[in-house]
């Protein structure tokens, strides 16, 4: 048996090759759908950023109000010391105008809506309002209630978590990267489409933290993805 293909096999491949590619109509249709998906995803990302900003502002406002509550006893005296044109002295900028912000802190609905936009199939939601502002100051995953693993997490959610992990690695925050990839593992039961990426990031983060479990994780990685293209990068990262 020769190692080369015969003329019949070559003819078959030549005849098949064009039929194995999508026709132009299909390519155009897929592109349209893809553009919609990307636009929705981008909208979700912006909404997420705006949501985080809103949360930060809400927490900051809450802190200010808390301080204001603490200083209520001295308010009349303080008001006297504020110039007349200062917003704090203007009813339009007064305490009442700030009330809706802490209301956001008490009511989890707005942040939830934003989160849902970012992740079309969110797996877990914060169960108590108190957890919502907490996400603005610490890695959100650690402040969520325990989740039931879901084997088929939405790809968008997977990408979001991997993006978050990679961004954390770039920022030098290996602990935050670990939190993100472990959230990914939890939500996908370790069987997500980006499980290999998540595992690679986890090993990289562990190496950066000089965690002794990195070697064990690397061995498990090799066993599961023996042909991984990421292996050489891990070798250089964990040198």
């Amino acid at each position, binding site marked *: 048996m020769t190692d080369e293909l015969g003329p019949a096999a070559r003819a078959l491949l030549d005849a098949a090759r064009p039929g194995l590619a*999508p026709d132009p109509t299909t390519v155009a249709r897929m592109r349209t759908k893809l553009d919609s998906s990307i636009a929705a995803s981008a909208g979700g990302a912006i909404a997420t950023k705006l949501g985080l900003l809103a949360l930060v502002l809400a927490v900051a406002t809450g802190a200010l109000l808390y301080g204001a509550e603490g200083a209520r006893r001295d308010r009349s005296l303080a008001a006297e010391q504020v110039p007349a044109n200062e917003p704090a002295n203007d009813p339009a900028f007064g305490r009442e105008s700030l009330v809706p912000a802490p209301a956001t802190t008490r009511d989890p609905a707005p942040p939830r809506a934003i989160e849902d936009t970012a992740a079309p199939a969110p797996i877990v939601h914060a169960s108590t309002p108190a957890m919502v502002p907490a996400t603005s100051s610490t890695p959100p995953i650690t402040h969520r209630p325990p989740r039931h693993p879901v084997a088929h997490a939405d790809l968008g959610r997977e990408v979001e978590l991997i993006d978050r992990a990679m961004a954390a690695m770039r920022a030098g925050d290996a602990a935050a990267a670990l939190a993100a990839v472990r959230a990914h593992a939890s939500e996908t039961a370790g069987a997500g*489409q980006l499980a290999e990426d998540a595992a690679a990031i986890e090993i990289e983060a562990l190496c950066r933290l000089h965690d002794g479990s990195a070697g064990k994780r690397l061995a498990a990685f090799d066993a599961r993805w023996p042909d991984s293209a990421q292996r050489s990068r891990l070798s250089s990262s964990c040198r």
Partner: protein
Amino acid sequence: MPAVAHALEPAVQDVARSLVFDEVYTSHVAFVWRTLRTFGVVDAQLEDAVQDVFVVVHRRLPEWEGRAAITTWLFAIARRVASSHRRRTTSDRTELLVDDRAGGDDTFAAMSRAQAAATVLAILDQMDDDKRTVFALVELEQLSVPDVARMLDIKLNTAYSRLRLARQAFELAVRAQVKP
């Protein structure tokens, strides 16, 4: 104002990324499509699978950095996406093979594209994943064996060995079709 500058910077990056993404999509959508097919994604799921691949590509393009060939990167993403889609059954394609059986080397040249593609895919379905992948990349994508070895992160000899065995299997299957 710094806040404005910060707001504009991602927008500029998005435009640049969009231009690159357009090029990647246009140049490689067929490659991704065939790769997904090679890995057993059924026709009904191909469009969704292609979309899944390019959603990931769009999000991760800034991290790509060009350290590997774009096809290598796309291939890796497509392989993972394919694994999440249901593998096709081979029965339909086996029926096509039987229906198309005629005789002579010119049989396949006269086939329609769809028939030829279905026949090739039916033969590929009978190979194991390792051989099918190397065969498809060399014979359908017309990549060099060293490139394929690098892409799959396997030794060159291993790639040649898999290709040789895959060619033998393909040749046998084709001969079985053209015999009177």
